[in-house]
């Protein structure tokens, strides 16, 4: 656990924000982005800033760097860096502080690296520029730093160009570059959001060690509660530009004292529960539009404990929860709400799965020239079931979806839908019946709808095209009915996509997919681009729609917590092959495939009651154009049996019925594996 108390020699905080306020001015007047933000960051401390998009967390980082651009303006308060007021510095002093004392790491590593210079040149530049050391000395330092950010083969790295490295390696280079100038403060803005979960785990490990090793203070911005819990000492939960709960990470997670924090937590699936035992609870309502902050408590209109007359008046001060650790909450009713109360029990649900195969995949292979994107996939999907395809980027899960939808054709093997062979049939040659029974929900809500047509027209087009209704009035009626089903107001039929939020667009995407009463819906990461609380609502909607229509859901995802929550069966893929498949409870419990074990251990956990075992996953994912012989995972597997795993293709070992693991390890070894997660014995007062 990272949360250890560190002794501090120096009493001056590295960074102090006092009543910081930031305003963006636009065409429609001034919009406050950050209001009354306070922060004290000591030497070597890591502070997490959590909240959903639009809560002002990135604005704070930009304000500290004084990078607000032309429209943003600091309207009040102070930013003290080691006691110096950053707002009073001139351009030259600011440049000095930015490079040498404060460094920032962004979400997209590629955007921070110059694509036309080698990594070496970019790294050497830093000490040469800031400390005027010789080139030889700078090279030595850069080379040493590469080792400290745990990049193997440093000499080759120094000679490489950014595009020759993977996303994880690039982010390590960016971190190395930041650390080379010995910054006192590191601002990390969602540094792992663009990375795969196992890569993320490595970076998080590194970040956690930086403050211990270099004594660097960190401001860690993230939307992921689990990541903040695993990396930070203290945290601030932001809502609408205001901190709503501040305190030590442990204290906040074990005693959540703000309804928003609790709401966020209830909205994320935990690895210990699924859709039938603990339904997700989305936060009611929507974020207020910028510039329309409600009076009093900004969270008031969405809060279950709202009391008119008290929550909607004046300014709500931060109230003390625990004076000793400085845990505070911006809730007037902090002493009144019964925080220990159990949430109202939700109906227990169950899924009716018929053991009738709808989609059947056997030995499906897809090659793009040298790259084998899918290699010998075989699995069955039963009617009414939710099957999840899990794996990191490049594992071939989206290629499979494209083959199934008829956007590309398989090289060999077969996919059948209700016994109709589809692997070689492009969508333009499929019968209307097949097209109607197979629909898709897309990943990016901002891309899924045509920006030029109204919502109603787009849904109506699907209805007309698939031949469900012909009469114009009946089509219109069906559109309104579908909007009702996805819980959108009927007026939305006449709106255009740009007037909708991400979650609302994804609801329209779901309505469109279900318009033709399909037998099978393929959902390609339908919630991964959405905010936490919206994710919960969309996931629940998907489950609702599926139950109502008895649809089979093929869920493609990299997020194991969502998969654990939603899926009945799981297929784990790596480099185009299936590593493990089986019922969800079986895949998420031992015996594991070593890759599944590593994937599980990489998931950041927000639940204080869960203890996680550490599993090391070495190396990088090999290129799909040169997959390793034998078991494709053998290059990174910690259990590798030399001479076997890297030579022979692994056999499929069957455990419970349908639970298959493709691995060379002896059966006894697999059966003796320890669970990755374990309930902590020490109970906290949060009951979910």
């Amino acid at each position, binding site marked *: 656990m990272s949360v250890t108390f560190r002794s501090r020699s120096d009493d001056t905080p590295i960074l102090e924000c006092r009543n910081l306020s930031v305003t963006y001015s636009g065409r429609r007047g001034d919009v406050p982005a950050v209001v009354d933000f306070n922060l004290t960051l000591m030497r070597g401390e890591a502070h997490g800033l959590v909240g959903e998009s639009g809560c002002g967390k990135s604005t704070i980082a930009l304000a500290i760097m004084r990078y607000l651009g032309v429209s943003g303006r600091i309207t009040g308060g102070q930013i003290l860096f080691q006691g110096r007021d950053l707002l009073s510095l001139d351009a030259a002093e600011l440049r000095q502080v930015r490079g040498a004392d404060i460094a920032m790491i962004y979400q997209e590593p590629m955007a921070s690296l110059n694509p036309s210079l080698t990594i070496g040149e970019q790294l050497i530049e830093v000490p040469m520029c800031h400390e005027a050391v010789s080139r030889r000395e700078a090279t030595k330092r850069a080379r040493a730093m590469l080792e400290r950010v745990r990049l193997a083969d440093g000499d080759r790295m120094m000679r490489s160009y950014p595009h020759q490295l993977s996303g994880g390696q690039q982010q390590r280079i960016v971190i190395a570059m930041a650390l080379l100038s010995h910054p006192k403060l590191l601002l990390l803005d969602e540094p792992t959001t663009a990375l795969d979960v196992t890569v993320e785990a490595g970076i998080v490990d590194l970040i956690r060690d930086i403050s211990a090793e270099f004594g660097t203070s960190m401001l860690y911005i993230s939307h992921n509660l689990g990541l903040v819990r695993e990396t930070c000492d203290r945290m601030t939960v932001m809502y609408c530009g205001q901190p709503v709960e501040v305190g030590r990470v442990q204290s906040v997670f074990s005693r959540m004292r703000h309804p928003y924090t609790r709401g966020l937590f209830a909205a994320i699936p935990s690895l210990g529960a699924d859709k039938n035992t603990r339904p997700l609870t989305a936060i009611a309502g929507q974020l207020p539009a910028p510039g329309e902050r409600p009076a009093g408590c900004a969270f008031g209109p969405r809060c279950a404990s709202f009391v008119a007359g008290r929550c909607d008046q004046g300014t709500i001060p931060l109230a003390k929860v625990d004076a000793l650790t400085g845990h505070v909450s911006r809730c007037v009713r902090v002493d009144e709400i019964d925080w220990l109360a159990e949430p109202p029990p939700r109906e227990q649900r169950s899924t009716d799965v018929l053991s009738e195969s709808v989609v059947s995949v056997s030995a499906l292979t897809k090659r793009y020239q040298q790259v084998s994107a899918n290699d010998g996939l075989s699995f069955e999907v039963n009617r009414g079931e939710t099957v999840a395809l899990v794996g990191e980027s490049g594992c071939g899960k989206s290629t499979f979806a494209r083959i199934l939808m008829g*956007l590309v054709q398989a090289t060999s093997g077969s996919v059948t839908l209700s016994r109709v062979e589809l692997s070689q049939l492009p969508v333009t040659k499929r019968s209307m019946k097949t097209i109607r029974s197979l629909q898709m929900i897309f990943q990016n809500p901002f891309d899924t709808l045509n920006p030029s047509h109204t919502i109603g027209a787009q849904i109506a087009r699907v209805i007309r095209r698939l031949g469900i209704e012909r009469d114009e009035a009946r089509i219109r009626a069906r559109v309104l009915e579908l909007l009702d089903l996805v819980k959108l107001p009927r007026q939305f039929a006449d709106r255009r996509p740009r007037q909708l939020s991400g979650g609302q667009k994804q609801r329209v995407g779901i309505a469109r997919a279900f318009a033709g009463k399909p037998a099978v819906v393929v959902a390609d990461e339908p919630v991964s681009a959405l905010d936490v609380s919206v994710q919960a609502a969309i996931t629940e909607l998907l489950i609702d729609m599926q139950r109502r229509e008895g649809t089979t859901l093929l869920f493609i995802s990299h997020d194991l917590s969502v998969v654990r929550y939603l899926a009945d069966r799981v297929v784990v893929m790596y480099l185009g092959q299936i590593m493990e498949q089986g019922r969800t409870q079986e895949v998420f419990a031992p015996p594991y495939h070593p890759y599944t074990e590593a994937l599980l251990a990489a998931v950041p956990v927000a639940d204080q009651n869960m203890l996680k075992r550490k599993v090391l996953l070495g190396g990088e994912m090999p290129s799909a154009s040169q997959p390793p012989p034998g078991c494709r995972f053998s290059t990174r597997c910690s259990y590798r049996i030399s001479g076997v795993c890297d030579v022979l293709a692994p056999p499929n070992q069957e455990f419970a019925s349908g639970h298959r693991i493709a691995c060379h390890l002896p059966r006894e070894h697999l059966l003796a594996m320890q669970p990755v997660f374990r309930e902590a014995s020490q109970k906290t007062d949060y009951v979910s």
Partner: protein
Amino acid sequence: MNALIQQTREHRRSWMTPAQLIGALLLIVWVPLMAYVMFHQALGIAAPYVLLPSVPAVLALYVMAIYHWRESWVAVLGVTLVCFWLLVAVTVPYLPLLDPNKPLVPLALPGALKHGMSFMLGSDMRGRDVLSRTLWGCQRVLVWGITATSVAYVVGVGLGLIGGYLSGWWDEAVTFVGNVLLSFPVMVLFILVLNVLGQSGFNIIIAVTFSSAPIIMRIVRGLAMQEKSRDYIQAAQTRGESALWIMVMELLPNIRGPLIVDACLRLGYTTVAITTLTFLGLGLQPPDPDWGLMIKEAAPVALLWKYSYMLLVPSLAVTSLILGFNLTADGLREMSQRD
């Protein structure tokens, strides 16, 4: 469900959307103007009346454009210039002007009053009124310029969509033809086309299409390639839409922004091209007034400072029209980046 159907039957759409209104107004301006210039003989006795409905339509369009783009002074200035010439084009038959083709008094200086006729901007060496010729000339430049650009756009957008969306063999073919056409210097291409096909307004359209369509094709192709990877295109593909539907209904509306800006700029280029062609004695033929022709005819006389008005007036006219198109394009770009 039945109640819902009943309810939607009663639900009435509003009479006309703003986009439809603008389209209708443009048609009311454009169709009579085109008929008046291109098919004057065919109109017979109706000719003097066809332009009457266009006058209020131009004014309405102008008011709408000014209101909509009031925040960008560049756009307002551009639209004002363009609408001024458009208004001149539709009102010129009703203005109390001298006959533009009739030799009256040669070399009358601006402001001169001779034989009871006032030559506000003087007359040329054959005695024709410069003001009248300039105002009448704008009709020809506008009609042929806009028509040629539109035809080039239809061809270019079609080919660009085919190349960008269908890709593969289609793309190769379309791009190759485009590259061949682009390898000719523009003027050589114009002269070639007009010499082979003969000199007329319709052949100017063909020449402009040959030179502009490949450029438009490239722009559209690039935009279409960018847009076609987006999820809503895949959504249309997975519901089995035809390629034609996807190109016209799904892709085209989403790339129209940059295309409208480019169209305004290209109107300017085409105006330059047509004026240059008539200056060289190609394309539109005398005696009907035309700015390029006026500049050409005035060139020898205008060497004398006294008679430079003959050159200046049509030059200023063509410059202001092109400036109008370019400023409108700039303003549109500015407005599109603001939202």
